[in-house]
């Protein structure tokens, strides 16, 4: 009986002069007043995406600071492991180029400082570059570093400059994704910092894992020919594949 009455009565009502109820038989009225519904999947998806972003912003705004901070650190970390395979390859490329921990530290620092700069600038909307170009050059940067590993024994002096320049680009890549994700307005800088921190942890993790695995054999004389060069070649190959894919 519940529904028997519900069907008769529960149909819903709308603003004063805009009469149409939810009774299926009344849909004809709606269709006449407003025209047929037009389902365009692309538009529905775009609307959904925008709505998700709004929902996220609301949820974030309602969270305590520490929770938000943690979420952004985690997001930054996940952007390297496991999702940032191209960033992992770039960092590995740097790793294979170095025999001394010292030179690796300098390169990674240059890379980090550079991508932090552009990440902040781009997230603030001060720098903008088409995503397609950025992504293509990021792929190229991987090829470059890996090829260089094969040609030189020791990283050259100006290599730091190149790494720094590539770092600037990688920062733009992070920023593009971060902007789509949406930073909360009231904690903009701290959440940006949190995200960057996550990225650094991710990078560090890659290097530590690589270091632990390769440490024992690094000083062997076959290391360069048997490990470093083949690994670099593979990295270069993947980078090249991406470059072609992203350009064409």
């Amino acid at each position: 009986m519940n529904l028997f009455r519900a069907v008769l009565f529960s149909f819903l009502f709308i603003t004063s002069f805009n009469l149409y109820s939810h009774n299926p038989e009344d849909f004809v009225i709606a269709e006449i007043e407003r025209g047929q519904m037009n389902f365009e999947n692309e538009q529905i998806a775009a609307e959904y995406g925008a709505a998700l972003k709004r929902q996220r912003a609301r949820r974030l705004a309602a969270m305590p600071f520490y929770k938000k901070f943690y979420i952004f650190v985690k997001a930054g970390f996940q952007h390297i492991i496991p999702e940032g395979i191209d960033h992992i390859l770039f960092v590995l490329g740097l790793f294979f180029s170095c025999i001394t921990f010292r030179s690796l530290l300098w390169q990674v620092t240059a890379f980090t400082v550079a991508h932090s700069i552009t990440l902040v600038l781009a997230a603030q909307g001060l720098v903008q570059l088409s995503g397609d170009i950025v992504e293509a050059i990021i792929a190229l940067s991987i090829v470059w570093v890996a090829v260089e590993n094969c040609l030189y024994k020791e990283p050259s002096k100006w290599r730091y400059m190149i790494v720094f320049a590539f770092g600037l680009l990688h920062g733009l890549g992070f920023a593009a994704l971060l902007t789509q994700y949406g930073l909360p307005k009231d904690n903009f800088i701290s959440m940006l910092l949190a995200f960057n921190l996550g990225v650094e942890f991710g990078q560090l993790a890659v290097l530590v894992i690589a270091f632990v695995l390769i440490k024992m054999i690094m000083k062997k004389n076959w290391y360069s020919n048997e490990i470093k060069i083949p690994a670099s070649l593979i990295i270069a190959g993947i980078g090249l594949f991406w470059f072609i894919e992203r350009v064409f």
Partner: protein
Amino acid sequence: MSKNLIFTSQLKTYKMRKLLFISALLIIVSCQQQSEMDPNINPFFQEWNTPHEVPPFLDIKDEHYMPAYEKGMEENLSEIDVIVNNPEEPTFSNTIEELERTGKLLSKVGRVFSNLASSNTNPQLQELQRELSPMLSAHYDKISLNEGLFNRVESLWQDRENLGLTSEQLKLLEDTRKQFVRSGALMSEEQKKQISEINSKISGLSTSFGQNLLAETNGFELILNKSDLEGLSDGVVAAALDAASQKMDKAESEEEKEKYKNKYVFTPHRSSMYPFLTESTRRDLREKLYISYVMRGDNGNETDNKEIAAEIAKLRAERAKIMGYKTHAHFVLEENMLKTPEEVYDLLVKLWEPAVKRAKVEVADMQAVANAEGQNFEIAAWDWWHYSEKVRKEKYDLDESAIKPYLSLDNVLQGVFNTTNKLWGLNFTELFDIDLYHPDARVWQVTDKDGSHLGIFIGDYFTRSNKRGGAWMSSFKGQSNLDGRERPIVVNVCNFPAPVGDNPALLSFDNVVTLFHEFGHAMHGTLTNVTYGSMAGTSGPRDFIELPSQLLEHWASEPEVLKSFATHYETGESIPDDLIDKLLNASKFNQGFINTEYLAASLLDMDWHTISAEEDLKDANKFESESMRKVGLIDEIAPRYRSTYFAHIFSGGYSSGYYSYVHAAVLDSDAFEAFKEAGDVFDPNLSSKLRSTIYSKGSTEEAMDLFVQFRGRKAEIGPLLKVRGLDGAE
């Protein structure tokens, strides 16, 4: 699962990964609640252990509905069988209360489906809806025509004095019995057969009426060249161009495509017609489009509705006669707040005169504008939108863009929450860990002044392409105290423009009024506190249920309240007084027209449904013009719906019910007047009386009694005339 996704993403294109990255982030923030549902079992067949029993939307897929409906109907029927075959003598508890407990599964799936088929629909759901509609009506027929069940109800009814029932129980028994009687339970077999024949004829004719109307509305198009667009704004032109290109996409032949190439299309759909009639300076084209609109179903072709309308009205009259009613209107109104056609006519006629008087003033105002322009014609019906717009600009001008910054959605929500807080002590806490059917839908817990849980409120405010137009209130769960305290889940769905980028959503004042209106329905559905679910919330008669919603609108335009929430989203300043004045003044614009066209349609509806079965009805046009001549409708205005396109009454369920909106308006204006008289729009005594009568009783008492309990007398029309500027006070 997610590992797999991420793994394969590495092999795929970068864009794919980008999407995944974002969705991974989303998952971190969004999915704080883990689904406990078994994915292999239809969610409608499982317990919902979700917070507050909000439906597990993410687990419900399109293919779950039909099996759940089928099983729900089957279960429902066997539950009814158990009641009917109970060897014990019928008692209130083993019959009426047991009936209340039936159909739980059907209700579970039905509420989710009917909501989502409108608020988040797709072609599959729409198809399903068409499929389900006849299945459900056949199902409910089986229950309402179940003789064994009626016999139990009837024997209780005969013995009602001796059952020791509470007034609520007595009303439930009465209402239940009435449903059966109105479905024909007391008829002889011969009469039942006649009625069912008439019903199926009416149903066939209603369908044809709707189909014809659709064909007629879609059948006319005004195809214009660039040179015909004089006066039209960019947005309107763009929409017309878009309409032409859509027609081109759908065209089947090259020749047809050519017809729309570089053209602009307007149609008799209101959304297309109104902007054209308002803006176009081409009087000849305005006339053409307008005439196409008012002639729908009246073109003497194969989709003509004249005979169909007359035939439907006649069949309804015959049916009423068989059932022992004087006319169809008597049959319908029996269930309403105004009980007889006389009462309805009395109300409509009282309002008619001031409305037409005001409309004549409006015509004169427009004529003055036209004359000043040096035009050499008398204002006609197709000039109304164009010239009333000019009058509006002159006398009622309101810069929407100056007001919107004060009306951000969040501020307005705060405003409506505060209003109910001041009236009834309610508090709203937004919940962020519940996933709904769409990320734009938001959810709040509503608590009472003592902190107890009252209900769940869902607000889904932004327009999107998979949502039906308009605004409405509905529920995902009803209220009942029969087997423990069950509190409702109600939802408001609107079509406000979504914000652009990171800006807040800014509403127009119309939107604000709509939000308060729907929120009024939501409060009716939330404050309800009755024993039996079928009598809860918005279950009352049609001319009553608009009262709780329209009443709340009055607080939105109360300067004291408006000032408290309308603060600029950037500067935080309160809305200035002169803007409020302009805003309130603008609400009186064009009221002569709006009320006249509406009342004309209401009167037409009543006329069609107070004919006797013997009346000789051939020509719907003659009937209509006689009906309008009788009351004195002016030439410059047509009824809001002419007979041949009055789908509400000939295709939908509004027959002799179209008046109900204005009846509710009389009630709400008069009810709010009580607060004005008290000198405090939050007067504590009135507020609590309002809650204990109008908002919490559902249909457990006669609606008119509830109103009188609140107001101390029946409603008067004076306050409404004042609100709408029809009191001649200008």
